[in-house]
């Protein structure tokens, strides 16, 4: 079975000013697949992720070149509205960042409000919180503050918020690194459930997390893609010696 390619990246370069952060990366992510991106700090993995929904260019002095196709359409094409693109390609960050002044309910539907409210916000609210595996825990306090939630719950709230605008792709940048092991396990379980509907690209420093959650793993080093392959292969028998050194802990 060969799934359709959802994200097709070819010869992607990204810079911060003069710093060449991503160098000629080509990668394909199949529809409803999970790609994990691993590599040491500063290897360009987060920058790569941010190029996929054009968040990279929001940093002053940052630019990108190359091709990123989403369903065959170039996301860097002249007619593409980055704001609309980011609705299709949602993002979840390392630190849970709910809007503190809003209620749990308003956090989830915040993206929808910006885009004009849908017919039935209650339906969206329940659907997204259920998909984010948070509904049962918050359904009786939707008007409460998100700050009363635990870190893991806040992160799932952020995932629910990302899901509300009905994206096709979810980018996750270290989504569980600030969470305890139980909350991490819930996020990982959630990734398994979300891949039924979404294509996911996950950046993580936690190699076991990459091994547990992803179908494909890409290893970045010094801005280059060293190797990308089936996750099982990357962790049992990688082709490149630099990948081998990294997954066995022989770096630096």
């Amino acid at each position, binding site marked *: 079975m060969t799934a359709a390619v959802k994200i097709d990246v070819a010869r992607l370069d990204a810079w911060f000013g003069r710093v060449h952060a991503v160098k000629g990366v080509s990668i394909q992510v199949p529809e409803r697949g999970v790609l994990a991106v691993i590599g040491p700090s500063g290897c360009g993995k987060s920058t790569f992720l941010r190029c996929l929904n054009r968040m990279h260019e929001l940093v002053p002095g940052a630019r990108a070149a190359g091709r990123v196709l989403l369903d065959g359409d170039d996301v860097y094409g002249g007619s593409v509205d980055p704001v609309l693109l980011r609705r299709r390609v949602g993002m979840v960050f390392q630190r849970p960042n709910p809007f503190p002044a809003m209620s749990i309910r308003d956090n989830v539907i915040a993206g929808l409000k910006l885009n004009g409210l849908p017919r039935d916000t209650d339906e969206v609210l329940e659907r997204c919180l259920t998909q984010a595996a948070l509904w049962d825990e918050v359904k009786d306090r939707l008007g409460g503050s998100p700050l009363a939630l635990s870190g893991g719950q806040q992160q799932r709230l952020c995932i629910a918020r990302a899901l509300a605008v009905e994206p096709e792709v979810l980018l996750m940048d270290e989504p569980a690194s600030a969470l305890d092991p139980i909350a991490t396990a819930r996020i990982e379980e959630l990734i398994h459930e979300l891949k039924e509907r979404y294509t996911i690209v996950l950046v993580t420093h936690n190699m076991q997390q990459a091994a547990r959650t992803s179908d494909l793993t890409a290893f970045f080093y010094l801005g280059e893609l060293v190797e990308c392959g089936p996750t099982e292969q990357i962790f049992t028998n990688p082709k490149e010696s630099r990948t081998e050194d990294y997954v066995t*802990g022989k770096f630096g």
Partner: protein
Amino acid sequence: MPSHTDKIYENELRELREKLLAMGAKVELAIASSVRALVERDTALARKVEEDDTEINREEVDIDDCCRRILALRQPAGSDLRFITTALKIVTDLERMGDLAVNIAERVVDLNAAPQLGSYADIVKLADLAQAQLKHALDAFVDGNPSAAQVVLKGDELVDAVYLKVFNELVGLMLEDSKNIRRATALMFVAKHLERLADHATNVAEMVIYMVKGTDVRHPHSRGLAEE
């Protein structure tokens, strides 16, 4: 080859390798002693092989513990993971080889209680081959050398051929005189144990190929997958 950033982990892996080699050396000695006990009619040596097996068994348990600890605490990946899974498998082969040396020694105790039946020349030849197979398999493991392991796999054919020759000779002795049957049967067991020893050496060699190359050559089916 770069070493692990975590030196304690590096040491744990090195210790595991050394333990396997030490156990392998004990098994080699047990096999050599069991055959020498036969050829030199040294019953005391045969009894020593039986006694010394407890040490080999203890080492098996120790190595298993080591592997489990590394799996639980280090979550090894890549070549480390293949090394640990290989260690877990070959330790079982080594322990079984120790048992086979004991089985030989048990037969030798019986055989030495009666006059020698015929020449032991071909049994000695079989024993030398089986020991060489184990030695080469362990060397291949130490050196991480898949071509040396491949030579062991090829070598098993000769072991089987010599075993068949010994088998036929012993059947001949049984047909000659029914009084030979008891001793010939005991020698047949010795020969069978030696042939099995060589099979375990082959298992070790197959795991060495997996450890180094990540390809599984144990069965025609897995070989086919590996070649795809």
